[in-house]
């Protein structure tokens, strides 16, 4: 017998379910989880260092997603940051099963911050929840002002946008108004923080915004 059945099930269903369990586990320990998205070289790791330097009082741990290297993890550990590595071996985003595996071998302190640097791309990391409280999107002036228009899903789901490479914006003819208009349309409530992740300019605002989320 042949028949057409109605299914109406999201492809991400299983991932969403497992991510929800992860999130419950984090919430039970009062761990606030930030999933950092952005293209390769956008300034995710540099921004993370600036943010962590400004978050006082609570322990911090970091999960670094990378396709095949642990350079960023080593660099963070050298700064005394409790960093762990997920090598996806080719997968272009982190997912809930990968998170389950790494969380099982981490010692995440109650009340802490957990930052996760996702794989550098703006397509599927936007679609896979991994137990986070918020997504933070890092985009750089060097990538151009059209990023919100090209990758709407990532911008729609971000709680805030960190716009890095403020220092070189004039040299790359960055059209800030066009960028902000795109973010506004996709995500009216998300603040945009224009920063320089090398000097740290602008990160006091990022850190106080983040801290304000959990008081």
């Amino acid at each position, binding site marked *: *017998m*042949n*028949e*057409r*059945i*109605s*299914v*109406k*099930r*999201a*492809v*991400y*269903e*299983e*991932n969403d379910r497992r991510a929800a369990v992860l999130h419950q586990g984090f919430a039970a320990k009062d761990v606030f989880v930030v999933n950092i998205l952005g293209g390769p070289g956008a300034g995710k790791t540099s921004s993370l260092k600036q943010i962590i330097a400004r978050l006082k009082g609570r322990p911090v741990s970091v999960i670094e997603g990378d396709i095949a290297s642990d350079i960023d993890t080593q660099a963070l550990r050298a700064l005394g940051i409790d960093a762990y590595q997920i090598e996806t071996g080719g*997968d*272009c*985003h982190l*997912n809930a099963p990968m998170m389950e595996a790494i969380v099982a071998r981490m010692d995440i302190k109650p009340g802490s911050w957990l930052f996760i640097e996702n794989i550098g*791309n703006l*397509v*599927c990391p936007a*679609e896979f929840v991994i137990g986070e409280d918020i997504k933070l999107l890092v985009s750089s002036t060097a990538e151009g002002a*059209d990023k919100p*228009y090209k*990758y*709407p*899903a990532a911008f*729609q789901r971000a709680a805030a946008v960190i716009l890095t490479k403020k220092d070189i914006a004039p040299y790359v003819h960055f059209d800030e108004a066009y960028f902000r*208009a*795109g973010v*506004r*349309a*996709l*995500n*009216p409530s998300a603040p945009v923080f224009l920063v320089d992740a090398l000097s740290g300019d602008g990160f006091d605002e990022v850190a106080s915004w983040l801290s304000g989320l959990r008081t």
Partner: protein
Amino acid sequence: MHEASVTEALVKLALEEALSRDALRVTAIGLVVGETTGYMGESLEFYFRNFSKGTILEGASLNIAYVKPKIKCPNCSLVFERKKFTFECPACGTPGEMTGIGNEFYIDTMDIETGER
């Protein structure tokens, strides 16, 4: 490359659904793909052919219905289809807001064969 792992998830979900319905074979999958996902149909089909090999999904056609992102103007309430590189309302020029239409990624229907082998 982004399509590889989502197609793996798609195949897994379709197999789970097919088994729960006692399907012997699946001949077609109706998939709804919102265009804000950025997924390419050609790639989804390519990976689907690969990942479905040797399963009851092998040979099934993947029928993709694309959904264009819809934007709503907060000023004049016009709902309009998104054009490349702008979110502005074509009627009044106000920057529009996303409606959520265009974010879909789900299996809508499956054509299955059941009964005696």
